[in-house]
C-alpha cells in the first residue's frame, strides 16, 4: 500500500510538469497539519526556502512565477511575505503576457495604493495601457483599479480617458470602471471628466452602458439634482430592457439583464425621491416590471424587491404602493428565509410611507422574531425599532431585552442596549417601567452602555414623575430601593450599575423608613468590599454611607458605627486615590458636627435643589470694610489688574501709598510679605487677592496642608467630573458650607480657577454634563405621553396584540393592565388574511370603547365587528381607546385558535427551488459524504483515482 502511495505521488508529480511539485507538497502538508502552530511552522519553513531561492542570482522566469504564487499563497494564510514584493513588481515588467499577468496579480494582492513600490509600476502600467493587445490593456486596467492612488492618477488619466473609445467593449467597460475608481479615490481629479459617463450611457454595447450606471449611481447619490434630466432616458432604457429588447446573451435565468435593471431601479429611486415630476415618468415602467417579473426565480425576486424600494422612495403612487405591498406580503409569506428577510426590509421601507401597512403583517413579523435565523431576527428588531411608539414600546423593549440577554456578540449587544435605552427614554409609559427597564439593561449590558444613561436614570429617580405628585415619587423611589437591594444579591454587576445603586441607596435608602440605616450601610459596605479594585464604585459607596449617616444624625437619631464600616473608612482614608481619601476625611469631619450643621450640610432629598452661590460673598463684607478701614488695600479684580483697565485700578487704589503711576499687571509686590506681623498688614501686602488672606486669617489652621490638598483635589475633581458628576453634587453642598466656614476653598492660589470651577459645579445635583440634554428628553417625553393619538394607540395595540396574548397564555407574567389593550386587537390580521369570506357588518364605533368592563359581553359575541372598526380608515378616530381594565379572555383565545387553525400559506412557486432547496436538503445528510470527498481530494496528490472528487456534484448534478 505504501508503495502504491509513493508510486502515485511520483505519478502525480510527473503530471504537474515538475515545477509545482513543491507547491503541491506544501498544500498537502498544510492540509494535513493538525494544528495552527504546525501549519505556521510549515509556512515559515516555506517562506525561508523562498527567501533563499529568491536571493539566488539568475532565477528562471518560470520558476520565479511559481515562487511568487507561493508567496501569495503564504500571505493569504496570514504570513508576511514582504521580502518578495519587489520581485512581483519586476515580473509585471515582463513582456511575456503570462508572466506579466502573474506580476500584476501578485502586485495587486501584495501592495496597497500607498506602498512605496507603487511608483515603480506606474511606468509599466502607462506602457501597457498603450499596448495593441487588448488583453494587455485589460490587465493594465485591472491593475489601475487596484493600484493607482490619488497622486498617481494624473500619470494614467489621459490614457484611461482615451480607452473609453476603444473598439473592444470589454476594454471600454473596464476604462469606465477605472474612471469610476478615480472618482472614488479623488473626486476633484476627474471632475472635468464627469460628462464622459453621460456619453458612455449611450454606448452601443449594453454591457458598457450597464457599467456606466455604477459611477452614475455614486454621482447621483452625491447630488441628484444635476441629473434630473436623465430620468426620461433612464426610464427609456429600463423599459427597453423590461421589454426584452436586449440580445438574449444578457438574459439570466430568463430575466432580461437583471443586474442592469437593479442598478437602474436604484438610480431611479434616488432621482425620484421627493420629486413628483420625475416620479411621474416612472410609474408606467414600474407597473410593468411588477407585472412581468417572475417571482419564482431568485433574480426575479431581487428585481421585485428593488422595485419595492424604488416605489417606497419616489413620490408615492397609490396603485404602485398596492403592488409593492402585495409583493412584500408575498415575500413575508414565503418559506424561504431569504425572501422573508427581504420582506422585512421592504416592510421597513413601506411603513415610512404608511405605518398602517405593518398591521396586516404582524403575524409574519412575529414569526420572524421567533425564527432561529439570527440575521432575520436582527432585521426584524430593526423593523420594530423603526415602528416603536409609546403604545407598543413595552412589548418591543421587553423583546429586545430578552434578545439582548441571549446574545454574546458585544457589537450587537451594545447596539441593542443603546436602542433599548433610546426607545425607553423616548416612549416610556411610566417612570416605574423606565426604571425597571433600565435596571435590566444595566444588569445585562451595563459595561456597554453610555455613562450618560446612568446619570439620566439617577436624575429621573431624584426628580420623580413631575411637579405635583409627591406621593408617587416616594413610591417610585422606595420601589427602586427595593429592587436595588434585591439586585445587589446577584453576583457580577457592572460597575456603572453599581454606581447607580449606591447613589440611590445613599439618597433614598432610608427615606421611607422601611430599612434601617445600619442595614443599608452594611449593604453598601459589602459593595465597597466586593469591588475593592474599582475606585469609582467605592467612592459612590463611601459617599452614600456618609449621606445615610448625615440623614440619621440630622434627624436626631444615633447611628451605630458598624465595624465593617469603620474598617472601610480606615482603609479608604489611606487609599492611594486622593478622591477616596477626601471622601473619607469629609465623612469623619461630618461625624463630629452638630445635627443642625449636618442638616445644613446634607439636607435630605436635596439632590435636585439648586444651590445658590452668592459670588459677592456678602457675609464677608463687614470684615472687609473693617480691614479697609484699617488701611488694607481693596481687592482689584483681574480685569482691572491687567493693563487694559489700569486707570480704574489707579483710581480705586489711589488711597494706597505706593507709587501707582506705572501700574502694571504684574505689580503684586510679593516681597513685602514677610515684613508685617499683624492681620491688617498682611492684607495690605497681598494685593493680588484679598480673599485668600482673609480666609487664612479666619481659619488659623496650618494653611499649607489645606492648600496642598486643595491642589491635589482640584485636578482630580476635574478628571473625574464626568464619571462621577452625580457625586460631585454631594460634595458640592459641602463646598458651599466650607465657604461659610471660611475654610480653605478660597485659599486656592488662583482665584479665577476657583471661581470657574465653582460655577461649573453649581448645578447642585452635579449632573453638569448631561443635565440639559436630559432636560430636553424628559420634557419631550412628558409631552409625548399625552399626545399619543387614539388612532396610533389602537394601531400599535393591534400590531402587538398577539404577543401580549401569547405571553399571557404562556407565562402569565404580564401585568393585567397591559395585556388587555393589545389582546383586543390581536385579531386585526385575521379578517384580512383569511376571513375575507366572513364579511362582518361594520359595527358602531363605540364598541371600541373598552373603558368599561361591562362591554366585554358584546365583544365576545362578535369580535370581528369590532375589528372592522379598527381597520376602517378613519373609523373611530373619535373613539376613546383607553386601555380597558379587562377584556374577556374568551375573545383572545377564540382568535388565537383561529390563528392556529389557519393553514400555512405556501407560495406555490417558492424561489430558486432547483438550486437552493436541493442544496439545503442535501446538505444535511451529505456532510459526511462531503467530508469524505474532501479527504479524497486531499489524497489526490497521493493516490490518483479514476474519478474526480466531484465536490459540486450535488449542486450541478
Amino acid at each position, binding site marked *: 500500500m505504501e508503495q502504491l502511495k509513493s508510486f502515485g505521488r511520483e505519478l502525480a508529480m510527473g503530471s504537474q510538469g515538475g515545477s509545482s511539485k513543491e507547491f503541491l507538497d506544501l498544500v498537502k502538508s498544510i492540509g494535513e497539519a493538525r494544528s495552527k502552530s504546525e501549519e505556521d511552522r510549515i509556512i515559515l519553513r516555506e517562506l525561508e526556502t523562498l527567501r533563499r531561492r529568491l536571493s539566488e542570482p539568475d532565477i528562471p522566469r518560470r520558476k520565479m512565477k511559481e515562487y511568487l504564487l507561493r508567496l501569495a499563497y503564504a500571505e*493569504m494564510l496570514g504570513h508576511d511575505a514582504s521580502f518578495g514584493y519587489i520581485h512581483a513588481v519586476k515580473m509585471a515588467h515582463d513582456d511575456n503576457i503570462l508572466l506579466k499577468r*502573474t506580476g500584476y496579480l501578485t502586485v495587486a494582492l501584495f501592495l496597497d495604493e500607498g506602498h512605496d513600490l507603487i511608483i515603480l509600476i506606474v511606468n509599466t502600467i502607462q506602457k501597457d495601457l498603450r499596448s495593441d493587445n487588448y488583453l494587455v490593456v485589460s490587465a493594465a486596467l485591472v491593475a489601475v483599479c487596484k493600484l493607482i492612488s490619488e497622486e498617481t492618477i494624473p500619470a494614467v488619466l489621459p490614457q484611461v480617458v482615451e480607452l473609453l473609445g476603444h473598439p473592444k467593449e470589454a476594454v471600454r467597460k473596464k476604462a469606465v470602471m477605472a474612471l*469610476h475608481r478615480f472618482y472614488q479615490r479623488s473626486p476633484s481629479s476627474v471632475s472635468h471628466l464627469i460628462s464622459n459617463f453621460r456619453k458612455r450611457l449611450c454606448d452601443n454595447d449594453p454591457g458598457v452602458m450597464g457599467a456606466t450606471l*455604477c459611477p452614475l449611481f455614486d454621482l447621483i447619490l452625491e447630488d441628484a439634482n444635476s441629473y434630473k434630466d436623465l430620468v426620461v432616458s433612464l426610464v427609456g432604457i429600463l423599459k427597453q430592457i423590461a421589454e426584452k429588447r436586449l440580445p438574449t446573451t444578457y438574459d439570466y435565468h430568463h430575466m432580461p439583464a437583471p443586474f442592469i435593471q437593479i442598478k437602474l431601479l436604484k438610480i431611479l429611486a434616488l432621482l425620484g425621491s421627493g420629486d413628483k415630476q420625475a416620479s411621474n415618468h416612472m410609474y408606467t415602467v414600474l407597473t410593468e416590471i411588477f407585472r412581468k417579473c417572475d417571482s419564482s426565480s431568485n433574480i426575479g425576486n431581487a428585481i421585485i424587491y428593488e422595485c419595492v424600494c424604488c416605489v417606497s422612495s419616489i413620490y408615492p403612487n397609490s396603485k404602485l404602493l398596492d403592488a409593492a405591498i402585495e409583493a412584500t406580503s408575498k415575500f413575508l409569506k414565503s418559506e424561504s428565509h*431569504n425572501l422573508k*428577510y427581504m420582506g422585512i426590509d421592504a416592510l421597513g421601507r413601506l411603513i415610512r410611507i404608511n405605518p398602517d401597512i405593518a398591521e396586516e403583517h404582524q403575524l409574519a413579523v412575529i414569526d420572524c422574531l421567533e425564527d432561529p435565523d439570527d*440575521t432575520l431576527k436582527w432585521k426584524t428588531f430593526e423593523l420594530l425599532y423603526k415602528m416603536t411608539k409609546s403604545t407598543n414600546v413595552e412589548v418591543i423593549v421587553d423583546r429586545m431585552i430578552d434578545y439582548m440577554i441571549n446574545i454574546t456578540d458585544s457589537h450587537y449587544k451594545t447596539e441593542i442596549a443603546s436602542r433599548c435605552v433610546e426607545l425607553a427614554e423616548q416612549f416610556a409609559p411610566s417612570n416605574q417601567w423606565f426604571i425597571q427597564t433600565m435596571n435590566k439593561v444595566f444588569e445585562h449590558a451595563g459595561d456597554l452602555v453610555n455613562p450618560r444613561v446612568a446619570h439620566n436614570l439617577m436624575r429621573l429617580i431624584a426628580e420623580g414623575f413631575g411637579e405635583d405628585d409627591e406621593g408617587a415619587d416616594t413610591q417610585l423611589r422606595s420601589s427602586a430601593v427595593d429592587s436595588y437591594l434585591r439586585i445587589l444579591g446577584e453576583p457580577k454587576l457592572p460597575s456603572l450599575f453599581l454606581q447607580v445603586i449606591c447613589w440611590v441607596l445613599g439618597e433614598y435608602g432610608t427615606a421611607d423608613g422601611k430599612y434601617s440605616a445600619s442595614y443599608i450601610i452594611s449593604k453598601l459596605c459589602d459593595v465597597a468590599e466586593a469591588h475593592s479594585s474599582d475606585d469609582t464604585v467605592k467612592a459612590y459607596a463611601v459617599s452614600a454611607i456618609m449621606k445615610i449617616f448625615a440623614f440619621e444624625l440630622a434627624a436626631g437619631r444615633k447611628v451605630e458605627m458598624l465595624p465593617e464600616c469603620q474598617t472601610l473608612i480606615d482603609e479608604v482614608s489611606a487609599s492611594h486615590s486622593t478622591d477616596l481619601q477626601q471622601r473619607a476625611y469629609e465623612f469623619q469631619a461630618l461625624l463630629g458636627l452638630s445635627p443642625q450643621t449636618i442638616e445644613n450640610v446634607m439636607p435630605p432629598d436635596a439632590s435636585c435643589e439648586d444651590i445658590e452661590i452668592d459670588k459677592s460673598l456678602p457675609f464677608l463684607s463687614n470684615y472687609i470694610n473693617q480691614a479697609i478701614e484699617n488701611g488694607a488695600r481693596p481687592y482689584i479684580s483681574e480685569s482691572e489688574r491687567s493693563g487694559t483697565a489700569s486707570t480704574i485700578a489707579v483710581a480705586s487704589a489711589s488711597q494706597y501709598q505706593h507709587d501707582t503711576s506705572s501700574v502694571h499687571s504684574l505689580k503684586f509686590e510679593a516681597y513685602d510679605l514677610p515684613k508685617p506681623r499683624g492681620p491688617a498688614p498682611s492684607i495690605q501686602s497681598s494685593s493680588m487677592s484679598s480673599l485668600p488672606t482673609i480666609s487664612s486669617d479666619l481659619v488659623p489652621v496650618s494653611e499649607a496642608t489645606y492648600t496642598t490638598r486643595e491642589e491635589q483635589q482640584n485636578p482630580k475633581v476635574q478628571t473625574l467630573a464626568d464619571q462621577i458628576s452625580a457625586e460631585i453634587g454631594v460634595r458640592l453642598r459641602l463646598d458651599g458650607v466650607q465657604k461659610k466656614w471660611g475654610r480653605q476653598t478660597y485659599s486656592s492660589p488662583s482665584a479665577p480657577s476657583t471661581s470657574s470651577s465653582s460655577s461649573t459645579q453649581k448645578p447642585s445635583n452635579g449632573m453638569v454634563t448631561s443635565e440639559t440634554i436630559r432636560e430636553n428628553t424628559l420634557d419631550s417625553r412628558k409631552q409625548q405621553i399625552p399626545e399619543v393619538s387614539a388612532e396610533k394607540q389602537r394601531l400599535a395595540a393591534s400590531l402587538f396584540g398577539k404577543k401580549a396574548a401569547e405571553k399571557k397564555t404562556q407565562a402569565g407574567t404580564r401585568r393585567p393592565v397591559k395585556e388587555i389593550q393589545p389582546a383586543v386587537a390581536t385579531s386585526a390580521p385575521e379578517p384580512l388574511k383569511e376571513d375575507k369570506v366572513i364579511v362582518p357588518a361594520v359595527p358602531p364605533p363605540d364598541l371600541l370603547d373598552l373603558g368599561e368592563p361591562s362591554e366585554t359581553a358584546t365583544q365576545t359575541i362578535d369580535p370581528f365587528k369590532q375589528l372592522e372598526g379598527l381597520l376602517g380608515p378613519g373609523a373611530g378616530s373619535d373613539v376613546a381607546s383607553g386601555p380597558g381594565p379587562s377584556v374577556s379572555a374568551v375573545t383572545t383565545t377564540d382568535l388565537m385558535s383561529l390563528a392556529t387553525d389557519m393553514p400555512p400559506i405556501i407560495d406555490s412557486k417558492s424561489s430558486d427551488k432547483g438550486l437552493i432547496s436541493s442544496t439545503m436538503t442535501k446538505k444535511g445528510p451529505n456532510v459526511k459524504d462531503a467530508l469524505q470527498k474532501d479527504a479524497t481530494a486531499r489524497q489526490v496528490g497521493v493516490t490518483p483515482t479514476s474519478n*474526480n472528487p466531484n*465536490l459540486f456534484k450535488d*449542486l450541478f448534478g
Partner: protein
Amino acid sequence: MIRAVMVISTQGKPRLLKFYQFQPPEKQQEIVRYVYAALSGRPDNVSNFVDADSIFGPATRLVYKHMATLYIVFAFDSSENELAMLDLIQVFVQTLDKCFKNVCELDIIFNFNKLHTVLDEMILGGQVIETNCDQILKHVDDIARIEKSSSTKSLMPKSISSRFGQ
C-alpha cells in the same frame, strides 16, 4: 460596492481572498476568522445573509453559499442587492465549474490565480461588470490561449482533477 470575495473552507482556512479595498494581512486574517465564526455558527435552512457591520463597517452585509466543503462569501455595502449578490455567487460558481470541469476544492487551491482572473472579469473595482457565464469564460479562455501561445509549456495544470480524470 462589493468589498470582498472570499472562499473559505469549512475548516476555516482561506482558499481565496480578494479585497476591493486594501486590507493589511493581519486585518485579512481577522476578517477570515470573523466570517468563519459567523458562518459556521449558522444552522442549515436559514437565510444566506449575515450582517457584517462590526468587521466591514456600517451597513455592510455578507451573502454566502455553503457548497460541499466551501463557503463562498461576498461582502458588500448598501449599494448592492442581497438577492442579486446571491445570484452573482451562482454565476461565479457556475463559471468555475465550467472552467475546471467539475470544480473541487483542490482546483481552487492550486489555481487561485485563475480564480482571480475569473473574478477580474466579473467584478472590477468592487462593481459588477459581467454576469454572463459564457462571456466570462470566453474572456478567460482568450487570456489562456494567449498565455499558452506565449509559453510553449503550461506551467500550472489547468485543472488537477481533469488530469486525474484521464
